[in-house]
């Protein structure tokens, strides 16, 4: 027992499930680069005296500013799926252009800077035209540009190097660009910051940025989605050219010198920085933030190597080794992270269910097994795939939600004729009629939708308030399950789990954690709010007959609870049926003040035992193939009738599971019960002798309000 208590506490307070969730977040890509950055700074601070001194920092930050601009440009190109090797030469070209215009041609600063940017941008445009429009290989094309531009730079150097060196510029603006500061921040670093922020906003918030990411992520899909792929690719090279030009100008103003080694090998350092920061070589994955982190690491490293007094060439060697490492990590990271996440995402919790009531057919229990569902009348056999929920309107037409994303309607009076009432997409589950005869539907993967009486489909809500400390984004609805509508029109609906989609709902059973919730949508104000959290697979929802509270089922908890909407207990939750012998699904109203709850499956002693052993289930999830997993017995189900106090009135079983192995929904209508099952291919109809033969759901909800 002590061990049991320890297990319970351990799984209550250690949030295992967060590991998998953290690994699933995109910002996890930044962890290694940031860690590396901290390590590099710590190492250099420790081994170089005065490394963090103000003077050194100012100097370093100017270099970082210039270098970072080029890295941002490279990142943009890489995000779009390319690579720009010409940045080194382009940088040198910008440098000599700026110097020649200022020093020799004596142009004004504004004109010179503009012309320099133009020249560099033109180089980028040339790359862009060749790669984007003529679709040449980015690597070879920019390698050629690199050589060509370097040749031009060499030519220009021969022409102007002496003149540049011998002349002097007397311009405060030019000096400011080279050595000035804005609010204590060196100008080039300030330019980098502004560019970075602007770049981040553009990439993550604006259309053109999304397009760049999309093209890099999948060129063909982007093309199919109507994105102008060629123009976008071309644009990325122009951006790279312009930013390189800007960096070259800043460099020219700072050092006022042109030599054959300006920008030599820069492309390698830039690619290293971009990849090291965590930007994918393949494109589509990365950010400006990553570029900056990478740029800072590489700058500090190359700087540090020089200051450590290592031999000439050591700097290039360090950069090379780091690049190799970065590419290796880039390639392995995605695979490794995906694998690890798949392994650790399923994180079972401790769940001890109350003792199961007897179901033996010879017992006097209200749950005693019988074969009352054996003689159901079958509707639509083989014509429907998975009617999770069934509902009837006032004219006796029968609706069901099926796997193909349709709402199927069987027409009264005999339910022999069938039509697609509406194609809503997704996986429609729970349904309810509102006051105006509109059919409100919970759709897994989409949210809450409404089909009005003229079959128009409107989205009601697909987003709720995000909880403060959740790691996964729980504002989107992944598995809206069942709903009911209060007298004031507010829609209460359940989301079974926030950690899995509909296709993986079974995995949630292995977890047995309170991953579900109940959400309220108010059509009057259009607001959506989460009302209850941490429910064990929140499933059926049903307004009480007096509309003062709602009943909800927690499938893995095998219980039905009541949530008070008004009265003295407003906001409180109390358990109505604590220990069902099976796994409850939908709850619906019945006649004479009763309710129906569907049990999708029966509790098994072996599974109940497993629920108290989370580590056992975790190992099972990792080692045993999914098809072989132990699972709640959903091959035998039943429907249970209970009253307002939670007293069980009767239960109807299909012992052999011939027609209704798993029952997920049932509706009472004019003295009959209609049954649906999420994995079934039929709807069942059976007479209920003591039911009110006039009672219908729509009348019960809206009869006196219409």
């Amino acid at each position: 027992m002590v061990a049991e208590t320890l297990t319970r506490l351990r799984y209550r307070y250690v949030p295992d499930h967060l590991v998998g969730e953290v690994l699933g977040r995109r910002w996890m890509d930044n962890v290694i680069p940031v860690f590396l950055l901290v390590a590099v700074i710590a190492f250099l601070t420790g081994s170089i005296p005065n490394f963090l001194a103000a003077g050194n920092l100012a100097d370093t930050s100017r270099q970082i500013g210039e270098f970072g601009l080029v890295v941002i440009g490279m990142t943009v190109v890489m995000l779009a799926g390319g690579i720009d090797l010409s940045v080194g030469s382009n940088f040198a070209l910008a440098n000599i252009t700026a110097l020649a215009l200022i020093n020799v041609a004596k142009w004004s600063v504004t004109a010179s800077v503009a012309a320099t940017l133009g020249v560099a941008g033109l180089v980028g445009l040339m790359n862009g035209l060749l790669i984007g429009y003529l679709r040449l290989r980015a690597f070879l094309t920019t390698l050629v540009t690199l050589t060509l531009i370097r040749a031009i730079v060499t030519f220009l150097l021969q022409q102007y190097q002496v003149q540049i060196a011998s002349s002097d510029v007397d311009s405060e603006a030019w000096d400011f660009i080279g050595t000035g500061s804005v609010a204590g921040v060196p100008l080039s670093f300030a330019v980098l910051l502004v560019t970075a922020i602007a770049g981040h906003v553009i990439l993550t918030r604006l259309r053109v940025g999304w397009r760049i990411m999309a093209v890099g992520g999948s060129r063909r899909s982007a093309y199919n989605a109507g994105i102008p792929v060629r123009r976008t690719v071309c644009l990325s090279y122009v951006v790279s050219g312009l930013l390189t030009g800007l960096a070259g100008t800043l460099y020219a103003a700072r050092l006022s010198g042109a030599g054959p080694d300006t920008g030599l090998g820069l492309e390698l350092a830039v690619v290293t920085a971009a990849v090291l920061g965590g930007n994918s070589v393949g494109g589509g994955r990365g950010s400006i933030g990553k570029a900056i982190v990478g740029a800072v690491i590489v700058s500090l490293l190359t700087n540090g190597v020089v200051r450590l007094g290592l031999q000439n060439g050591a700097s290039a060697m360090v950069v090379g080794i780091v690049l190799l490492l970065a590419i290796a990590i880039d390639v392995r990271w995605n695979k490794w992270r995906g694998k690890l996440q798949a392994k650790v995402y399923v994180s079972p919790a401790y769940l001890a269910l109350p003792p199961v009531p007897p179901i033996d057919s010879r017992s006097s229990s209200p749950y005693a097994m019988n074969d009352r569902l054996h003689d159901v009348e079958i509707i639509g056999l083989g014509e429907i795939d998975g009617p999770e929920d069934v509902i009837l309107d006032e004219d006796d037409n029968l609706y069901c939600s099926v796997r193909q994303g349709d709402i199927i309607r069987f027409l009264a009076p005999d339910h022999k004729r069938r039509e697609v009432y509406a194609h809503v997409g997704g996986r429609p589950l729970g349904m309810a009629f509102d006051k105006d005869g509109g059919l409100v539907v919970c759709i897994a993967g989409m949210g809450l939708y409404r089909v009005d009486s003229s079959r128009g489909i409107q989205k009601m809500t697909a987003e709720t308030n995000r909880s403060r400390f959740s790691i996964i984004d729980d504002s989107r609805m992944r598995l809206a399950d069942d709903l009911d509508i209060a007298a004031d029109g507010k829609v209460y609906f359940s989301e079974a789990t926030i950690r899995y989609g509909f296709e993986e709902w079974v995995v949630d059973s292995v977890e047995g954690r309170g991953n579900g919730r109940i959400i309220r949508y108010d059509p009057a104000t259009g607001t959506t709010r989460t009302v209850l959290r941490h429910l064990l697979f929140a499933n059926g929802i049903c307004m009480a007959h007096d509309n003062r509270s709602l009943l909800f089922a927690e499938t893995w908890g095998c219980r039905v609870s009541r949530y008070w909407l008004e009265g003295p207990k407003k906001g409180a939750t109390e358990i109505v049926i604590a220990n069902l012998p099976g796994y409850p699904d939908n709850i619906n109203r019945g006649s004479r003040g009763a309710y129906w709850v569907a049990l999708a499956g029966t509790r098994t002693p072996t599974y109940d035992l497993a629920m108290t052993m989370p580590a056992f289930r975790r190992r099972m999830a990792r080692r045993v193939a999914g098809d072989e997993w132990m699972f709640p017995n959903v091959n035998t189900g039943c429907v249970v009738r209970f009253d307002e106090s939670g007293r069980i009135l009767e239960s109807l079983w299909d012992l052999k599971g011939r027609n209704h192995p798993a029952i997920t929904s049932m509706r009472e209508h004019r003295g009959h019960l209609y049954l649906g099952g999420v994995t079934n291919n039929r709807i069942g109809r059976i007479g209920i002798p003591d039911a009110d033969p006039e009672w219908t759901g729509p009348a019960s909800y809206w009869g006196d309000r219409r």
Partner: protein
Amino acid sequence: MNPLRQAMDRWLGRGEASITVPPMDGAFRPNDLLDSASTILQMPAPDCLAQTAQGVLVSAGRSLFSVGNPIGGGVWSFDAEIAAVTGLPDGGAAVGLVDGRIAFVGGRHGGSTIAASPEINCITALAPARDGALLVANGSASNGPADWKRDLMEKNASGSVWRIKPAGGSRALLAGDLAYPYGLLEEGESVIVSESWRSALTRIAPGAASRPETVLENLPAYPSRLSRGADGTIWLALFAPRSQLVEFILREDRYRRGMMRRIDPDHWVAPCLRTGLSPQEPTQQGSVKQLGVVKPWSPSRSYGLAACLDRAFLPTASFHSRANGQRHGVTSCLAIDGRLYFCAKGDGIVASLPYAGSAP
């Protein structure tokens, strides 16, 4: 074995801790032949077939029935349940009872009984030896034949094989420490034993010095009784399939102990002769009914399987009743005149089918 390696294996699910199960492939490729067989008898839990001068007999409960003459009712009845039966060369039969006694009917020793002995309390199979002696398989030292699930879940290997003289009842131990011997066949000087919990056939050679030798292993199901047809083919009944989940449970000591302590054996996660009798039985994800149908390939704790082996004890053909079939839990099979007789204990059926064309 290195304890560190063991701990590592357990943590990573490798080596000893791996739960790989051989696939039903090669000679074990699934078919529906057992389901296509024609039913001869329907009775509760027919267990063991034997060929005698009275024709083919089948044991069920406390009685032996004649398979060829179903109207006749019980041919012989006993005061205890029958655990195993075998035909003898003289046309009689030896009947092992659950309390350890061995009774002879018909033939030379007809009417005599060998008293129970403390060492033999779980008779699972009998077979005649050439010298007139009787080979007896004792499944477990601690559990009776009805508790075979517990024996598996306790991971016992306490079974033994004995040679008993029908006259006088003197006995000699041929081999011990066997993992539930459930089938016997004399092969020249040695004895072939099917060890259920090792999913293997083992050869016990004469002379106590030689260690048992494995002749066939990695069977995809738990083997049961062995028999030899007139044409020399060897037939093996396999009573339940192996599954990843059960292999996993066998490696989870804490869960398994809790299960054995608290839960009715009918509801254990363990192989069985027939699944789906109670909604409280464990289910597996892949066996959820889809559109009202149990898929034949879905994981199941019961299965119908009989295999034909060649003279080297290598499987050459197999006869199946898959997850959705109705001939599960085959505990015994015999080949007579080109027909394979088998009893599906789980489904209470004795049936036969011609095997020419399906097996060499």
